[in-house]
């Protein structure tokens, strides 16, 4: 699978990239899922979400993509009546935020290796912890 375009995250006033897709969990749990149009092998999911952490809470604040009928996908396509932000209360897991220079490009999913990975632990949409992992190119080799 081609390397995938990452989600965006606004955290501590910084615009970061995120190698986690909390909306996938929403769809898996039975949340409303419109039919996204597949445009590109680098975007199998068909959309790019922008997320924000306010206080300790994770919100999705915008969604860009194309629906199967050719119209633009927005936050309201998934969450009718919510145009500005949606609290990701359904999400429990770990957000991975790659930081620093890319050490190694891997042509699959989110497998490329960066200098550091910042992990945020989230419970029901609330950030409960974080840690940083220093990476080296060798870690990618280990995974093969």
């Amino acid at each position: 699978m081609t390397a995938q375009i990452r989600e965006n995250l606004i955290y501590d006033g910084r615009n970061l990239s995120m190698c986690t897709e909390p909306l996938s969990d929403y769809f898996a749990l039975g949340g409303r899922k419109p039919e996204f149009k597949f445009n590109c092998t680098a975007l199998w999911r068909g959309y790019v979400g922008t997320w924000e952490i306010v206080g300790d809470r994770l919100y999705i604040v915008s969604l860009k993509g194309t629906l199967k009928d050719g119209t633009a996908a927005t936050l309201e396509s998934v969450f009718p009546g919510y145009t500005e932000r949606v609290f990701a209360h359904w999400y429990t897991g770990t957000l991975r935020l790659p930081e620093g220079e890319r050490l190694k490009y891997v042509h699959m999913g989110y497998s490329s290796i960066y200098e550091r990975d910042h992990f945020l632990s989230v419970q029901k949409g609330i950030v409960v912890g974080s840690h940083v992992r220093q990476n080296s190119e060798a870690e990618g080799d280990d995974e093969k």
Partner: protein
Amino acid sequence: MIYLYGYLGIGAILLAGILISHQLTKSLADDLVSEVLQATDPRSNQWWWKPLNKVGVPILFAIAVTAIWPLVIYWKAKEMVDARRPTQNKEPPKEFAVTQEHLRRQWTVAEIESAETVVDPLNAAPRIPFGHLNPAWETFKPLMADGDQIWSFYAHWTTKWGHHEVRDGYVLVRGGSIGPHFLARCEYIEEEDSE
């Protein structure tokens, strides 16, 4: 020589057809996604990126289609045939199911709805049980018949992609056997966490 011109001519006609079809079917939203794709590609800041994508790639595409158009037709035909062919001899992926070992404790619907009501100070979720997932919960509730019990469950699960997850939620227990379930949470476990 006339055959070569004829061959290239057919390729040129096919190329024109592809370009016209692309222009007719592409939408404004496609351009939006293209912008997103370009903006997030780290190579887009390089000086060669724009000329390569705006000029180089289209020229290479045109040459390729004109030169090897029989292959293009073959690939497209194969794609259409494969899309229509029913999947055969494929074992359906194993479906997640709650078992007795996964059961935690018995609840009432009122207790669940009280515990699972979502409250957000920015009002970015409806203040109802399971928030944005409430429609799924409301679909599940009528499945409960007289005499049914409702239990919470917690299970480890490996997806068809080989990913390890922890799943929890609520399940109906009917006469001692496990009935339908409602999935409330699904946590992907990183390999380093599960080791």
